[in-house]
């Protein structure tokens, strides 16, 4: 008798649980499939592999594409850091398996991808709707092989400005108006150093002029047409006077005590934003969101954006379509759509990723854009002007490694360990030689 009662109870419970499951309201589509609602049944599924949060999903571009093309279903997979994403992409390209239909590539890797993987990738210049003239020349050239195949379509770029704290500038007796701040150093990075020295004279206690010497180094190199490679593809960073000039200038920021001796993208750097440890930071368009995150509500209307001494570029990405995929044609169409000027403009408006399609700069979403957090700075105008004047930069396959070792080994030693510029340089060169296998 008792047994029967238990059985009944269990059955009732089970039934309740089952029906409970069935009655659950359907989950919101985004949480379930990482993309738009509706099931993928009977649809062509296109997968997109990206690193970090790329913004296509977040700004609703996938949803819109699926609405326009009811036969398509998009799935995205993401790996947080490019340093984990890129080696995996290479192994997958090498084996021809495990690839998404569309893969993102970071700008520092694009030369290597273009040079070594081009025959594994689709030539996207022939895809319908892709117009070369929509894009900035140099962005287009970076993903184009010697024989004229364009294997990557540019998404965003990182035209540079300088972000600065109005309150600290005022205390130090520097101008606070963004036009006047831009005039402080217009045209010459050494004037940026002079501004730093002026800041130091009356610097608010516990603050430095800028975050790090490496940040200065990268910013200056980003505005130099030639950096680590020459047009023939030879490694020339050791002898390139532009690199040495940038090195010496960045090192003098450390020597003059103008840096907060931080390393970028570390927790300590983030805390530096939150605590107002430094007054300026080199500021590509994508950095605005970062500052807003890290400086928080306390930084609202405190930070502002001014033009950089010279226009330069820092960061940006591309989309490539591996030939090993089974839906390369559909994938190429999607890649073309995602990187078309209208969509890039929308990505800027919603995510702050600055368009690499110059055709987008005239659109109101870009030209009229202002940023409330940065005192309604006219960021569309500031960054468009910077983007149009970015020098055509020669990129090489090992740009990322050279840059990393210059900043995270050499310049970091100068900035944080008090090594001389020469010692730091030699340490970086030794590390790079070992890495490049020369």
């Amino acid at each position: 008798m008792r047994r029967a009662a238990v059985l009944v109870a269990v059955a009732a419970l089970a039934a309740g649980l089952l029906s409970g499951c069935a009655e659950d309201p359907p989950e919101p589509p985004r949480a379930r499939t990482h993309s738009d609602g509706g099931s993928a049944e009977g649809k062509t599924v296109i997968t997109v592999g990206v690193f970090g949060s790329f913004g296509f999903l977040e700004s609703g571009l996938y949803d819109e594409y699926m609405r326009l093309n009811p036969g398509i279903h998009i799935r995205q997979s993401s790996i947080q850091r490019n340093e984990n994403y890129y080696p995996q992409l290479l192994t997958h390209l090498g084996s021809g398996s495990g690839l998404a239909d569309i893969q993102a590539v970071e700008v520092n890797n694009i030369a290597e991808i273009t040079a070594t993987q081009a025959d594994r990738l689709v030539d996207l210049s022939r895809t319908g709707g892709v117009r070369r003239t929509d894009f900035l020349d140099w962005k287009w050239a970076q993903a184009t092989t010697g024989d004229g195949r364009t294997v990557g379509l540019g998404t965003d770029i990182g035209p540079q400005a300088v972000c600065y704290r109005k309150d600290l500038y005022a205390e130090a007796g520097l101008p606070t108006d963004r036009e006047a701040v831009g005039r402080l150093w217009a045209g010459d990075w050494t004037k940026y150093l002079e501004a730093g020295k002026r800041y130091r004279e009356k610097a608010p206690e516990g603050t430095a002029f800028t975050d790090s010497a490496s940040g200065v180094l990268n910013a200056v190199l980003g505005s130099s047409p030639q950096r680590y490679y020459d047009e023939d593809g030879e490694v020339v960073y050791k002898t390139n006077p532009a690199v040495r000039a940038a090195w010496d200038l960045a090192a003098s920021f450390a020597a003059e005590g103008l840096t907060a001796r931080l390393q970028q993208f570390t927790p300590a750097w983030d805390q530096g934003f939150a605590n107002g440890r430094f007054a300026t930071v080199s500021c590509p368009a994508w950095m605005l969101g970062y500052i807003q995150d890290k400086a928080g509500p306390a930084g609202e209307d405190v930070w502002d954006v001014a033009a950089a001494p010279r226009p330069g570029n820092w960061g940006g990405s591309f989309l490539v379509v591996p030939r090993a995929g089974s839906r390369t044609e559909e994938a190429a169409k999607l890649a073309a759509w995602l990187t078309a000027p209208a969509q890039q403009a929308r990505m800027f408006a919603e995510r702050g990723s600055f368009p690499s399609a110059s055709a987008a700069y005239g659109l109101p979403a870009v030209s009229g854009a202002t940023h409330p957090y940065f005192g309604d700075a006219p960021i569309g105008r500031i960054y468009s002007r910077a983007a149009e004047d970015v020098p055509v930069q020669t990129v090489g396959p090992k740009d990322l490694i050279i840059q990393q070792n210059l900043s995270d080994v050499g310049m970091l030693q100068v900035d944080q360990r008090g090594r001389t510029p020469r010692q730091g340089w030699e340490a970086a060169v030794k590390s790079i030689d070992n890495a490049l296998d020369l």
Partner: protein
Amino acid sequence: MTSRTTERRSRRHRRDLRWSPYAFVAPFFVFFLAFGLFPLLYTGWASLHRVELTAPTEMEWVGLRNFTRLLHDDFFWNALRNTVTIGLLSTVPQLLIALGLAHLLHQRLRGSAFFRVAVLTPYATSVAAATLVFALLFGRDYGMVNWVLSLAGFDAVDWQNGRWTSQIAVSTIVIWRWTGYNALIYLAAMQAIPRDLYESAELDGASRLRQFLHVTVPSLRHTILFTCVVSTIGATQLFGEPLLFNGAAGATGGAEHQYQTLGLYLYEQGWVNLHLGRASAIAWAMFLLLLVVGAVNWLIARRLGGTATGGGATGRRATGRSPRGGRTPGVRTPDDSTPGRST
């Protein structure tokens, strides 16, 4: 039931008895072949070639060049040195603290189960989470460690940049994670030590400390050796903690490679610089190094094994010693299970 069917059944039963065990252990060996042996051999083959991750199928034979160049590779020797010093800095205090902790847990105390679980919680935390927290604690400008030091009147320490300070910081993470794990192993072994040993020691008027030094520690000899072996292997493969200690620098291990371990250098060569051949050579060098470490341990174990039956340093013969001779009863010795450290 005919006799024939019984016979068939019994034959099947015999076959079953004979082959089933193999079937049951087969999954392990299949997996080992696929994910253990094959990579090992492939890595060995790759170490004799020039292979780049940009074209993993194109292999150019270079013989032993990848190995000979390690001999003149300052970064390799630097990493080896760091691995040894971080290994010592983390293993020695770790095992000493674990021994002390186990001794305390061995006492009768209220809520002992709670404390036993508590010492194991760091082990259950992910390396990534733990390391990120520690990286914040050891921050130069706003770190809690420096804040405490400043309360005590010391200057702020730049934990990330100094050779010793960074290695101590990395070691602290390792110690924090693994002490409880080792303490529980010691505790298990301690509980197998016969009570009468302590009783007779007490009759002789030995203090708690003397009992610990002269009864407990000698009885744990083999357990201690086991933890030494496992910790040495773990220390040689140390990777996650130094990698995440400064997430932004990635695999360089600091501006002067001051805490770059062998594991990090291997990762840097393979997955940052994309030289698979050179990375493979480092992997094999590490493997050979572990073999040497293993051989040394084996020699020590043999030494200990010879004297273990001689009783503790008290000179008193262990009356309750297990019939298995030198082995501490109730304790799994290395041949039973070697939980590798996944970092």
